[in-house]
């Protein structure tokens, strides 16, 4: 689901500034610089973000302009990967390992440092084996009109996107406020009004 198909749910932004002369080359380099890459460490649990093409989330090569620039529209995705251990399941396995250690050592309680060591080893083993959760969110930039659509209403996802956009293109994004859609005088006058109370008068 996204900008190209399915129901559309997007936050609209005004782009503060314009693409520079020669943006095709500049932005190709920038997108490649901030493209998504799988982390070197297979046990990394922090979120990893980057740009991928809209056609396939495995494609992170922006050298072919025809894959992401269509006249005045630039379209691509933010990909976010994160590895998470399945909480209760992991805890249950760790408890079993701790019990096994106690039985082997003839101890009633496992020392904290040993338990931590077992936990670290189990985490390492599991994290190298599990796949990340992969999330993608489409972006459409209308460069002629100076607006961007980001296909998510999540504040967290939008914060991540705005930071990545700024890092990549050195352009800030401002969420479109309904007042921005009105002529200035009308917006000014509307700002002086209050809410309308339709409660029954007693």
């Amino acid at each position, binding site marked *: 689901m996204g900008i190209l198909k399915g129901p559309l749910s997007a936050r609209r932004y005004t782009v503060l500034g314009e693409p520079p002369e020669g943006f095709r080359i500049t932005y190709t380099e920038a997108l490649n610089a901030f493209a998504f890459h799988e982390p070197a460490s297979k046990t990394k649990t922090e979120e990893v973000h980057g740009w991928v093409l809209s056609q396939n989330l495995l494609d992170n090569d922006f050298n072919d302009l025809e894959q992401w620039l269509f006249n005045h529209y630039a379209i691509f995705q933010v990909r976010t990967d994160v590895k998470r251990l399945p909480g209760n399941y992991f805890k249950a396995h760790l408890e079993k390992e701790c019990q096994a250690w106690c039985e082997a050592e003839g101890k009633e309680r496992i020392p904290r440092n040993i338990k931590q060591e077992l936990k670290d080893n189990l985490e390492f083993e599991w994290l190298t084996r599990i796949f990340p959760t992969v999330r993608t969110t489409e972006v459409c930039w209308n460069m002629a009109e100076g607006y961007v659509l980001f296909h998510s*209403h999540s504040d967290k996802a939008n914060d991540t996107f705005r930071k990545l956009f700024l890092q990549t293109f050195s352009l800030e994004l401002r969420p479109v406020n309904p007042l921005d859609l009105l002529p200035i005088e009308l917006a000014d006058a*509307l700002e002086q009004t209050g*809410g309308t109370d339709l409660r029954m008068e007693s």
Partner: protein
Amino acid sequence: MEDERAVLGHLPADFLTWIWFTTEKSGGSLILEEVGGIDCYVDDRIAFRAMEDDKSRAVLTGENAANTLEARAALAGGRVVKEIRLMIKREDREYSVSLRGELLEISGAKLPGMVKGAVEEVLYDRMYLYEELHGIVTALLTRYATERVAEDWKEVRVPEMRAWVADALASVTGVRSP
């Protein structure tokens, strides 16, 4: 580029209620500047919140959700509209869309038709339709704002809207206010 404006807290609720009232009063047919004639009516979802907070207090769904006793009672009792689902038709193109949140964001918009083909063709088609929908919402907002700041809003429009709420409640309960 102008300075960033603060979000106007009461604007979404006021605007969404105005759409509901205006489309019902006009039988769903409106003529908007910049856009021309459209058909617009509240579809199958309307959500309310208390005036003081953003949590949904009542969500009504189903055919004619806006014409239910619960919907009118919510307004009459001081709840405000938080989200509304609209059906909009312009010429032969039909849109279904929710407007929600303090930014009046487009949500779950079903765009008409679907060009199948290369990414480019699909993109141009989708963006053309999105921009039409955005233009219609902007035109509705402009019309609302023009009426809202007019001198007769308090003396004429607000009593009309209160009567609209009261009449609808009365038609369902059979009780009219004195």
